[in-house]
């Protein structure tokens, strides 16, 4: 049950258990697949690359482990951590349990940006798909922020502006796809809109892992401010929080984390919504505990979802967004039900 009343040792044990579980999930993600590779071989392949050891492994296995599956698992873990952290931050700042990156229209904007590059060919070659998505995400975030400021800036208004922004960008994406894309492009885009980890390689790791770590550190530096938002912005300000500065830093960090994730792996829903609530249920609402639990939980969940997406239908990979939502929605319903029972 809940560990919110228990001491630091329970938390330390939980943290270590979660880290071990994450390590185990990543090892599994690297071993499991169409070509099954024993965990021992996986460890040897990683050791060959990291420490220059000379274990005898086939070059195909070495390549699959290092170039394909490990990078994929690391991007999945950091994307899961980034999306869940963003959800936890937005829920605290906007004081709305429904807040998550998608609500602010960030992913819709990223999709439009990517589609502009992919189909209309804006700056193709210079920008690439990811940069297009990143620019789209930032434009969407600025637009929603601007609209919300004009509309009074309360938590609910920002959510409403986000919904409006999402609809606008989704309509733009659909418009471009239906008027300009051929069948093959449309299929590629659909897959990407549902989230996909295929095509992820090491350069993506070098971007997504540092952003997730930086996001985590910056968010942890603001745990007291986040706690102080429980009774609203005026209450936070009267507790000595520099509300405007905290909002700018944390909204900015959220936008950067979400935009980088969406630009690499497309729209993956439900992680930012479900994981923070599940973590709150486990460790309580204090952000000093909630943020580490959320980041680790998101990473574990996403790596697990990636494994499921690769094994659930033989010889076919499901879009990971389908898996996160298929498992996330019922999990969310159970959490809501049990929390109601508690209150």
């Amino acid at each position: 049950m809940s560990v919110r009343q228990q001491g630091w040792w329970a938390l330390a044990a939980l943290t270590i258990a979660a880290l071990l579980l994450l390590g185990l999930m990543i090892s599994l993600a690297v071993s499991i697949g169409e070509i099954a590779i024993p965990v021992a071989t996986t460890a040897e392949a990683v050791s060959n690359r990291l420490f220059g050891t000379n274990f005898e492994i086939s070059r195909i296995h070495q390549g699959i482990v290092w170039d394909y599956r490990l990078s994929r698992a690391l991007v999945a873990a950091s994307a899961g951590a980034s999306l869940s952290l963003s959800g936890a931050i937005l829920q605290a700042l906007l004081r709305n349990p429904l807040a998550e990156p998608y609500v602010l229209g960030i992913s819709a904007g990223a999709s439009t940006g990517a589609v502009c590059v992919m189909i209309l060919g804006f700056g193709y070659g210079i920008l690439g798909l990811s940069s297009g998505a990143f620019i789209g995400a930032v434009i969407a975030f600025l637009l929603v922020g601007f609209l919300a400021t004009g509309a009074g800036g309360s938590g609910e208004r920002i959510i409403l502006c986000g919904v409006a922004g999402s609809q606008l960008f989704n309509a733009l994406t659909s418009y471009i796809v239906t008027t300009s894309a051929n069948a093959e492009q449309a299929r590629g885009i659909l897959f990407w809109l549902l989230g996909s980890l295929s095509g992820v390689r090491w350069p993506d790791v070098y971007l997504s892992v540092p952003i997730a770590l930086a996001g985590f550190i910056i968010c942890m530096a603001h745990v007291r401010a986040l706690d102080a938002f429980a009774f609203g912005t005026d209450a936070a300000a009267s507790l000595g929080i520099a509300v405007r500065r905290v909002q700018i830093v944390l909204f900015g960090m959220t936008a950067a984390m979400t935009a980088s994730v969406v630009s690499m792996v497309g729209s993956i829903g439900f992680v930012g919504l479900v994981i923070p609530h599940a973590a709150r249920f486990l460790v309580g609402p204090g952000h000093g505990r909630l943020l580490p639990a959320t980041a680790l939980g998101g990473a574990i969940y996403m790596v697990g979802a990636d494994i499921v997406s690769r094994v659930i239908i033989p010889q076919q990979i499901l879009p990971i967004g389908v898996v996160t939502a298929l498992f996330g929605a019922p999990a969310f319903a159970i959490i809501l039900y049990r929390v109601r029972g508690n209150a």
Partner: protein
Amino acid sequence: MSISVDEVSFAAGDTVIVNGVSLTVQRGKVFGLLGPNGSGKSSLLRLICRLRKVRSGVIRLGDDDISSLSRAALARRVAFVEQQTTTDTQLTVRDVVRLGRTPHRGLLSSWGAGDDAAVDEALSRTGMRERAGQLWQTLSGGERQRVHIARSLAQAPSELLLDEPTNHLDIQHQLDILSLISKLGITCIVALHDLNLAAMFCDRLAVLQKGEVVASGAPEEVLTEDMIGRVFGVRAHVQKSAVHGRHHIQYVMD
């Protein structure tokens, strides 16, 4: 510490909400702010704890201009109890009171024995110590108001601002909250609607109308039949109470 408000004005867009208000609150006294709905009481309180910026004028705590203090420094001196704020977060009473220590803690300093002592004392003074483990959502309106006051006491302020702390409470809890406030011994400014409660618990009063101070002084100087008629548009009969010796107001219907 005393509070002085000097020629302070505040506007939202083109609407002037507080207009050239000056008042002084003596150290350790309970100062009541009266006035009809929309007369600027809440805005004036928000200006004093700098949740809103004054358009003109100066507000001082002791000798310090509040605009020269950092947010955290101000929060270590002035605590504010808003009108009926709530949360969906599943916090216990102790969690909420602990928030009061926020301005006293640095980025890296951990929770200390001093913080625990401040929280325990605040819980005891408001009679909420036995309820410390209870969830916020299970509290009644009066208990929530007590917890807000406990949170503000954990802030260890020298001045406490309260915006209609008795709103929506039954009469027992109204009396209970105001007698708690009047015994705290720190400088308090309380926005109130009930003139009889103001007469019973406040040392000084000021009456706001359309953002301006139209009367101020001791309760018996301020609460006159003439003022009540002018400001609230109600006929009243004011007499000294035989029970508590303070002014008592009875309203007269035509």
